[in-house]
């Protein structure tokens, strides 16, 4: 597949007529094999950009497309075969086992009537293997830790056998180890399967560590986009973070942002 998987072009979204736009002429693209993190302060338009790309927000102007086709024109079950999404919060009404939960990732392929076939069961088994939840298959999802539950939902998205993954604040409630495990998993999947991935996060440093590129949103606009280093630097220069920060480079080459203490000397030190 040539060309970007996700593409937003001068997209503007306004939730109520007369209100300030939640997304204001934003453009960016994500290609297969690329992991892009959507970052920015609260209310910057990250969730709205995601909703536009997933065909859930009405565009006032501009376009949002998936594999070159307008996002809103995809039938839901077809889009679900192309894009697996892990949403921020999910509260099922009824209990299910891990295996049952992951198996629901096959629904976009099964449609209304087709029964689970051997190929579907294999896809479920592979997905559980890849997300390292195979050992949990018989557990009730209500008894899982936060990190396990996130991995189960990634497994369900993988069972969709999608060409793209979208994760909305995937590590919000995870401790350091589970946060790293989850993002390493996503990074591996992107690399090995050439998935296009979008991670929405307000953990700037984590995003800079794992993403190939950052899209920094500010008041509905793309304030900067590109390699993590230049985006963080541009954000610092333009005061997007609303707080004085310094940009540092780690020994492994990744760049990280340090918020300054009030009254400390300005500027970076390394």
């Amino acid at each position, binding site marked *: 597949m040539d060309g970007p998987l996700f593409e937003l072009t001068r997209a503007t979204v306004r939730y109520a007529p007369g209100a300030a736009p939640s997304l204001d002429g934003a453009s960016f693209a994500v290609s297969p094999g690329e992991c892009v993190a959507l970052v920015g302060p609260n209310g910057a338009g990250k969730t709205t950009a995601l909703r536009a790309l997933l065909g859930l927000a009405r565009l006032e102007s501009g376009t949002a497309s998936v594999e070159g086709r307008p996002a809103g024109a995809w039938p*839901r*079950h077809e889009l679900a075969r192309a894009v697996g999404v892990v949403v921020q919060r999910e509260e099922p*009404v009824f209990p299910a086992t891990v295996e049952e939960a992951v198996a629901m990732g096959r629904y976009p392929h099964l449609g209304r009537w087709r029964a689970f076939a051997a190929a579907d069961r294999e896809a479920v088994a592979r997905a559980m293997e890849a997300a390292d939840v195979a050992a949990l298959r018989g557990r009730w999802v209500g008894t899982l830790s936060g990190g396990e539950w996130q991995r189960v939902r990634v497994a369900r998205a993988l069972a969709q056998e999608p060409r793209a993954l979208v994760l909305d604040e995937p590590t919000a409630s995870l401790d350091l180890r589970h946060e790293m495990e989850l993002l390493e998993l996503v990074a591996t999947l992107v690399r090995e399967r050439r998935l296009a991935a979008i991670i929405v996060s307000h953990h700037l440093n984590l995003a800079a560590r794992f993403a190939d590129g950052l899209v920094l949103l500010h008041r509905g606009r793309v304030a900067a986009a590109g390699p993590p280093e230049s985006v963080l630097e541009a954000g610092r220069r333009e005061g997007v973070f609303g707080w004085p920060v310094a940009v540092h480079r780690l020994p492994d080459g990744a760049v990280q942002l340090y918020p300054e203490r009030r009254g400390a000397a300005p500027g970076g030190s390394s």
Partner: protein
Amino acid sequence: MRPVRAGRFAAGLGALLVLALAAGVLAGPAFLRPGEVLGALLGRGDPAAIAIVWSLRLPRAALGLLVGGVLAVSGASLQVLVRNPLADPYLLGLSGGAGLGAVLAIAAGVASPWALPAAAFCGALLAMAAVYRLAVVAGGALDGRVLVLAGVVVGSFAGALVGGILSVTEAQGARSAMLWLMGGLGGAGWVAVAALAAYSLPALAVLFAEARGLDLLALGEEPAQHLGADVARTKRRVYVAASLLAAAAVAAAGIVGFVGLVVPHAVRMMRGHDHRGLLPAAFAAGGALLVLADAAARTAFAPVELPVGVVTALIGVPVFAFLLRRWTARSSS
């Protein structure tokens, strides 16, 4: 993984159905020995026995089976729609609204078994709309607990209106209408069975076709969308079909509460939440339960009959209390 295996569960359900139907044709004020009943079913023996079995007991068992099944499927679907495992057409005020619609139609002189379900359907849709409005006003977002409260309130209001209408209309019809509303299969005949089947089969088919949509919807609207569900369409269909089922059941047998709560719960616990398996199983279990409850209602104080709604409430309220405790304990922890 599941407490009961699918094959064993289906066998148990089949046995329960046979037991219920046997009880349905054996119980009654006229004493018939099992051999006589069997003969009558095959069209042999005493013509009086044949008449009793074929035009009284069998249609009554068939109506009970349909009413119980339809209520259970309606309840199971509503539980997903309103995201509350305690939902049931009775507790959500749907049955009350349907009863009001039916009583208004009767008061206006329309009593055909083919027209009553339509009037009840209008009542049920209005009641459901009122319940939604109340629940959303009270909480901002739809709150499952407020929703059940709103359902009970709307149901009571509909009940009060029904009481008022019945007391100002002709006294002679009032008592029988009252008895019908308390839930009874006394008016059973093949016409009633045919009318209920005609109204409920399309709705059952719609819900069965949405079974996977229900599975997804139970995850929440957002995840459901990303797994390919057309959430708005599924919700609309479930709303209309579940209301139609509740209305058709009310038009046929009055207000029978708690079947739609107790039966899907029991089946969910034993069989899991996959609605392609759950809905048919709930239909069979609900039907069997209602036929058994009706057999008990006819024999407990024979020759006087209890309304079957009394029996289901006697079973259902303690079960509801138990489930409520468990549910509130879980969601507040």
